[in-house]
């Protein structure tokens, strides 16, 4: 049995670990609330542009933008993978990357990966996927500018015909305990929920419709990706909070066990000492 002193050292170390994980848990909790607020703040724009693009898909049968036109054959696919920069957030990234690889395998074509977050870059590199663009060190309050580069690469490659489809994989925030790895098709735009039978009407356009459509669709794609990054942030912090809470609880359990062992060792030492004194006294008598 380890000596009482050694066990005391272990207890101290484990308690320190628990303090750190507790602090990280609280930091994550406060960041999580901010990230949730950011998702809500961004909702107005996202819903506005979604509604407009929805109207446009219906209103514009004679002019089809490339972003709305499905290609007959998909030869190469783009994948925008959203992940966190740091670890210590449970299985969040692992699950998202599993989803990403499932999407890639299902497509059966070569893939260009565009990564948001360091973990995605690492996963793609490890599995030998061709990486077309990466952005890392995303701010805790992400701004649109940070992710524009990646989205631009995806749209340019799509327009140039290098990619025939672009998908997006990210973690969707359901609640604090649940984050759902989610995939969606970004390009060509998903028009499955457009109802052709609704009454036909069209906007007045200024300047001409093509210019407006082009600009709006670009912003639509950007808004979708930006929104997924915000959701992913909320996921990251809630997953980290839960992981750190589990770590703190575990550390406390270990401390409890160690405490018992320590008491036993101390008792054994005392008993032994008394026995020695007694036998010493008996011998000298």
């Amino acid at each position, binding site marked *: 049995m380890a000596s009482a002193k050694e066990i005391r050292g272990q207890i101290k170390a484990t308690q320190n670990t628990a303090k750190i994980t507790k602090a990280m848990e609280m930091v994550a909790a406060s960041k999580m609330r901010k990230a949730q607020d950011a998702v809500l*703040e961004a909702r107005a*724009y996202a819903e*506005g542009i979604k509604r407009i693009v929805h109207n446009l898909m219906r209103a514009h049968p004679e002019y089809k933008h490339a972003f709305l036109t499905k290609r007959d054959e998909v030869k190469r696919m783009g994948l925008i993978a959203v992940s966190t920069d740091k670890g210590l957030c449970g299985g969040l990234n692992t699950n998202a990357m599993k989803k990403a690889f499932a999407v890639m395998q299902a497509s059966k074509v070569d893939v260009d990966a565009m990564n948001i977050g360091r973990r995605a870059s690492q996963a793609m590199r490890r599995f030998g996927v061709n990486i077309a663009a990466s952005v890392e060190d995303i701010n805790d309050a992400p701004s649109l500018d940070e992710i524009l580069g990646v989205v631009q690469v995806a749209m340019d490659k799509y327009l140039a015909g290098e990619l025939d489809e672009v998908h997006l994989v990210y973690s969707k925030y359901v609640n604090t305990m649940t984050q759902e790895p989610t995939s969606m098709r970004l390009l060509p735009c998903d028009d499955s929920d457009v109802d052709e039978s609704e009454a036909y009407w*069209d*906007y*007045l*356009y*200024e300047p001409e419709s093509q210019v*407006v459509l082009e*600009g709006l669709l670009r912003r639509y794609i950007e808004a979708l990706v930006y929104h997924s990054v915000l959701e992913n942030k909320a996921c990251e912090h809630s997953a980290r909070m839960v992981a750190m809470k589990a770590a703190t609880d575990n550390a406390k359990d270990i401390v409890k066990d160690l405490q018992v062992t320590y008491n036993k060792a101390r008792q054994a030492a005392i008993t032994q000492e008394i026995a020695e004194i007694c036998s010493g006294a008996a011998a000298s008598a």
Partner: protein
Amino acid sequence: MATVDVLVATAEREVYRGEADFLAAPGAAGELGIMPKHTPLLSALAAGELRIHRDEEIDEVFISGGFIEVQPDMITVLADTAERAHDVDEAAAIEAQRKAQEIVDTQQGDVDYARAASELSIATAKLAFMRKRKNQK
């Protein structure tokens, strides 16, 4: 008097939500004035100021471009960046304008030039917006 709901939002946040009885916006093809019950319209916006009239009050929001969607009972402005009048910092605007002008003057790559030219127009519009507000006070 009839009013129309107005929503001004950037990708990052909601800037303004309320009712208006008249709205003036810097359309790409010239200034737009919109009253309630306007026919559906979709327009690109240039850098400039958005004026939202409600009774006697006027709210001003600076935008550096974006889109406006008009429905008879609802106006949605999707701005690239939007700043409420009191957020616009004149010093920052002048600095941005100077920097953009510098790049335009020393014209290197086409991409740089195009970006600088657009930045310049935004900075100039921002400054005009600031000066006008100052004169009003």
